[in-house]
């Protein structure tokens, strides 16, 4: 490796209206007198879609191509059957994926790897987070991370943090924040990268986190219109909190024994302490039998909370797992208690580690039973413990019932993770939020009805304008808050971004259109989980069409990566987007690199001009 000189590594991240576009470029030189393998390995957030990858060797560029997954697989079927596989994308930690590829480089040759990915940053607990994996593994002559954030509504704060080996590097991060722009720059010199003055090891090894928030209008929200597409952000934090009914459904089956059960108890103790006094709560434990702390909901008074904590201390793991019965019991509890004296908002939080092993074990039947029982009247949030959890069951259960699922990693901070998740959903501010756009100005809307809105989160709706020229349209936001229903009405007006960000060509490009495409694909992929088999086909086709059109590597597409292998042959590999199921086991490579039949490199530089005969020539003039 010492004879591979990493000449530069640059991470260029541009965020406009929460949509992040990151380009990672690494240039390396083989200083040896023999061919050597050069590795390119970078981390990207698991919420991101790869959009491009290229390898350039001595002026020749190998560009990757996004293809329909099945088509790509069929193309390389013979390679799969011969067992020639290796992973290009692997799960890495809790929130990242690793993209890695290597290429054989001739002596004294240069190689440039360029990976591009995009993601819509989600607001959690009052901030957006940009994560950049920084692991060059050796000293780099020119190392740069440049992050530019453009938020037309104004930036509230920007915090930069890192998990490098030591904190010595953090003061080198330069941060400039003006009203609507933020610039973060990190470029340690060779000496600053070294672990000691004579060492060749690098200190740069960790993640860089940039957290920021924007100013949120408290009425209709923030709307950006650019190039015929719009995005609407709605995140009014200054609203009174709504009380809720919450039932914790706790798996106490045998597989929870040990650390998981201990962490669950610890987390519940903290969560119970933080219940709001106007909330009502219940505790249901299940193995193959169901027990509840009390058969009814209790107000979160200090006395009740103290008694509940005493109950939590007694929860022990034992026996088998009957998720179906546990959930139906909780639904029944919430349904029975629903009356004028209880809050409108009800939620179930399921904590489990395992596959059902008792009672109803047919997963689709469990989903059907729970969905029928809930019938849109409450939300279900699922927390899955352990690598062997049947995450797709939990994910589907949550999506079918207006909630979300989260994996809780079995590490020392599992209790913190649990608590963090609860904090996200602990403070509902609104119910039945509808973002409407009266008239015919907008089309191709993403989801515009949301069952609930939690403090610190954000509702995002994007769409296309019927006419490119449309720069204003009616907007209406309605929701149920504490007390009664409210409706905000207003007119969305395209801002003169030119005056806001006069120097930036990027933001006048197609980023809102890509944001719309990203959000639409995500929602179509989610919708597939809960729609009928007939609708599923259509939904999948739509998501695939958009993935291909916008060059996104999603769970429906693969990126075919071509790289030179020998003088006459190019090797073809495939990069896929991991699904949650595939992330379960982070120890195994998840996906395949498939070897294609050899391709001849075809470059002709000697040409002789001839008059066109029967062939159709094209003569044209245009701009781009």
């Amino acid at each position, binding site marked *: 490796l010492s004879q591979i000189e990493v000449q530069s590594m640059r991470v260029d991240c541009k965020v406009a209206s929460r949509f992040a576009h990151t380009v990672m470029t690494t240039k390396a030189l083989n200083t040896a007198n023999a061919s050597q393998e050069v590795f390119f390995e970078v981390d990207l957030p698991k919420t991101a879609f790869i959009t491009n990858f290229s390898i350039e060797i001595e002026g020749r560029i190998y560009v990757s191509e996004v293809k329909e997954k099945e088509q790509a697989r069929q193309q390389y079927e013979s390679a799969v059957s011969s067992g020639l596989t290796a992973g290009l994308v692997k799960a890495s930690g809790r929130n990242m994926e690793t993209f890695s590829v290597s290429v054989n480089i001739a002596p004294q040759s240069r190689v440039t790897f360029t990976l591009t990915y995009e993601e819509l940053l989600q607001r959690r607990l009052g901030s957006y987070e940009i994560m950049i994996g920084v692991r060059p593994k050796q000293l780099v002559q020119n190392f740069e991370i440049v992050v530019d954030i453009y938020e037309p509504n104004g930036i509230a704060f920007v915090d930069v943090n890192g998990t490098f080996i030591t904190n010595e590097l953090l003061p080198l991060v330069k941060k400039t924040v003006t009203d609507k722009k933020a610039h973060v720059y990190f470029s340690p010199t060779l000496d600053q990268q070294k672990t000691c003055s004579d060492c060749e090891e690098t200190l740069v090894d960790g993640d860089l986190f940039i957290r920021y928030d924007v100013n949120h209008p408290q009425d209709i929200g923030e709307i950006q219109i650019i190039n015929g597409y719009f995005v609407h952000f709605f995140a009014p934090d200054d609203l009174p909190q709504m009380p809720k009914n919450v039932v914790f459904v706790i798996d106490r089956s045998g597989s929870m024994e040990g650390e998981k059960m201990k962490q669950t108890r610890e987390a519940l103790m903290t969560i119970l302490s933080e219940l709001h006094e106007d909330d009502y709560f219940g505790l249901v434990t299940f193995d193959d039998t169901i027990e509840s702390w009390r058969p009814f909901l209790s107000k979160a008074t200090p006395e009740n909370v103290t008694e509940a904590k005493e109950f939590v201390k007694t929860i022990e793991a034992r026996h088998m797992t009957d998720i179906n019965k546990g959930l139906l019991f909780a639904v029944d509890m919430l349904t029975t208690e629903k009356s004028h004296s209880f809050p409108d908002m009800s939620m179930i939080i399921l904590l489990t580690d395992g596959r059902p092993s008792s009672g109803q074990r047919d997963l689709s039947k469990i989903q059907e039973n729970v969905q029928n029982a809930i019938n849109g009247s409450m939300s279900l949030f699922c927390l899955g413990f352990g690598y062997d959890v049947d995450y797709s069951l939990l994910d589907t259960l949550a999506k079918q019932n207006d909630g979300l699922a989260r994996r809780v990693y079995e590490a020392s901070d599992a209790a913190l993770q649990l608590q963090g998740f609860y904090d996200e959903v602990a403070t509902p501010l609104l119910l039945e939020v509808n973002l409407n756009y009266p008239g015919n100005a907008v089309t191709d809307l993403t989801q515009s009805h949301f069952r609930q809105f939690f403090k610190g989160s954000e509702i995002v709706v994007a769409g296309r304008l019927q006419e*490119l020229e449309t720069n204003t349209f009616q907007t209406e936001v309605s929701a149920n808050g504490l007390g009664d229903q409210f409706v905000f009405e207003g007119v969305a007006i395209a801002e003169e971004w030119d005056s806001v960000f006069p120097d930036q060509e990027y933001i006048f490009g197609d980023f809102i259109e890509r944001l719309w495409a990203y959000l639409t694909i995500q929602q179509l992929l989610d919708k597939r989980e809960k729609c009928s088999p007939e609708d599923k086909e259509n939904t999948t086709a739509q998501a695939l069409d958009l993935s291909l059109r916008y060059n996104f590597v999603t769970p429906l597409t693969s990126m075919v990566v071509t790289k030179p292998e020998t003088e006459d042959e190019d090797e073809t590999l495939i990069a896929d987007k991991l699904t949650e199921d595939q992330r379960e086991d982070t120890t195994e490579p998840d996906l395949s690199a498939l070897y294609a039949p050899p391709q001849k490199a075809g470059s002709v530089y000697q040409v002789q*001009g001839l008059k066109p005969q029967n062939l159709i020539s094209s003569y*044209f003039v245009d701009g781009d």
Partner: protein
Amino acid sequence: PHFIIELPDQNDALCFNIDHKPGTIFNLVRDPPTGIVVNGQIIGDKKIIPGNKMHTYFGRFGIVNEKFGIRLMVSTKEILVSERGKHANFSWTNNKTLEGLNMDLQVIKDRSLTVTLRNSVKFLIILHKIWKMHPYHQDYLGFYTLDSHLFSSNVHGLLGQFYHGVNFEVSDLFPGKDPDKQDANMFVKGNKLTVTRGWKRDFRQDVKNGEKVPCWFIHNNGTGLLDGVHTDYIVSGLF
């Protein structure tokens, strides 16, 4: 504007830019025997992106067929047709098909205009619509020759001179000024030029993203490839 000359029998293409003061009118096609003339007027960006140079595009085309008394003015706003004293006005905002004795027109809403002149040629004009509030760019037009085989051997103009092919040879690649691109020597029309391997876009199929066409780029407004220099093609009016 970017000019692209595709030569499929050589499996290659040539390209060059012509930039001049906005408002300048260039002759693209002139074929005295058939009486066909195509001129185009260039426009600039609304303003120049800081640090960049001014780019120009075609904003208006004038097409004349003297034999049939046809004049066609196509701009980013409207399409005006006159045939032996009769006038008609079309908008880009509606689909429209007109089949005349000597000329067929087909407007595809906000996208393209196909002009077919009887027993002679077929052109496609593409409308590139830009968001009106875009701070730098504005609507512009692209011009594509779909069928040129009935032009006479005397056809000329910035595009017309290539309608009957061009002979060229290109030497081996070598590193150029731009570290991301390779240069080569091109021998064409008795000249030796340094050309750069690059690509331009053909927007016929996908008006938004276009399709990349690899080509040899001739620098300095096509000097050396063009007969004469680009300013020789400046004319005083669209018709």
